[in-house]
């Protein structure tokens, strides 16, 4: 029988729930980290990634509207995240498109939803469903803690690789650089909301569960990128994985 956790215990439990199915374990992420992907592979990644992260402010917008008025600070945090994602500095998706263009694709191809894989469409749909239907605190746990807060640790590993192994310039990889800072702020805000408002055993357990599901969804997404775009050229044994 689960018991109500204090803030420190609950935070550790959330972090463990996310780690369990980290997307870093997917063949696509391993190939990326080892410098084995081509620019064409990275272009396909960008064309998919746009449709997952592009609507992030939309997801948060639905969530903002459904968060009770009495949760003033939580609402302010969500609003700040939306502002920073879109108009606080450069629009994040514009930086993603800059990277995509450096990989040889075009803005038109990136924004065209016909170029995302069915699995990416599934991840995007899951994000919308969570934002629209889940308890708002559980939704913050899933989208902000479970997904967004993972980003700095992923990009901290990937960004030096993009410069050193793939030869991209600082400007070309700015999308990754900025997320190390801004998603750390966003993720922390998410943690603050969840730690403050998940104040029953049931809510805490639902938050943990959705973090696990979010991590699974991200792993599914990156695994599909490998299956759809990379597998024919780089086999699993070449990545040190069982076929």
């Amino acid at each position, binding site marked *: 029988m689960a018991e109500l956790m204090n803030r420190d215990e609950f935070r550790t439990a959330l972090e463990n729930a996310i780690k369990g199915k980290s997307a870093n374990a997917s063949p696509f992420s391993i190939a990326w980290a080892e410098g084995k992907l081509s620019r064409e592979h990275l272009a396909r990644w960008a064309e998919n990634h746009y449709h997952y992260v592009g609507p992030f402010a939309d997801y948060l917008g639905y969530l903002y509207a459904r968060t009770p008025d009495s949760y003033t*600070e939580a609402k302010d*945090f969500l609003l*700040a995240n939306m502002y*920073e994602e879109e108009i*606080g*500095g*450069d629009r994040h998706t514009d930086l993603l498109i800059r990277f995509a263009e450096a990989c040889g694709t075009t803005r038109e191809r990136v924004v065209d939803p016909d170029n995302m894989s069915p699995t990416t469409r599934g991840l995007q749909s899951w994000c919308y469903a969570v934002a629209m239907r889940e308890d708002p605190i559980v939704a913050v746990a899933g989208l902000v803690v479970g997904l967004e807060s993972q980003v700095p640790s992923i990009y901290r590993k990937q960004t030096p690789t993009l410069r050193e192994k793939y030869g991209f310039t*600082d400007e070309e990889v700015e999308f990754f*650089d*900025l997320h190390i*800072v*801004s998603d*750390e*702020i966003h993720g*922390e*805000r998410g943690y*603050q909301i969840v730690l403050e408002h998940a104040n029953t055993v049931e809510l805490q357990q639902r938050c943990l569960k959705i973090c696990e599901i979010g991590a699974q969804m991200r792993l599914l997404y990156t695994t599909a990128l490998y299956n759809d775009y990379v597998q024919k050229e780089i086999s699993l044994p070449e990545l040190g994985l069982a076929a």
Partner: protein
Amino acid sequence: MPIVVFHKGGQTYTEEVKENTNLVVRAGIKQFPYPHLRYECGMGKCAKCACRVLAGAEHLPPVNWKEKKQLGDRIEQGYRLACQLWLNSDIELVQDQE
């Protein structure tokens, strides 16, 4: 754990922070040095978080490309972008009034 001494508008604010702390991330969740640290984009583009380092600069990582681009000549005067710094040792910094 690092001790941060932050000067602004003639006032001094001091607090111990965790290892690997970014002051803009802290301010973003309304913790010290909130509400005194001015920042905006959190991505090294606006330079609103620029601070002059008075002590502890030798423990910071080298100035990165964003800081070079945003700060230019001010780097020689000791300015850094707080949003680009993860602190692991004591530091004293001052932020100019707008």
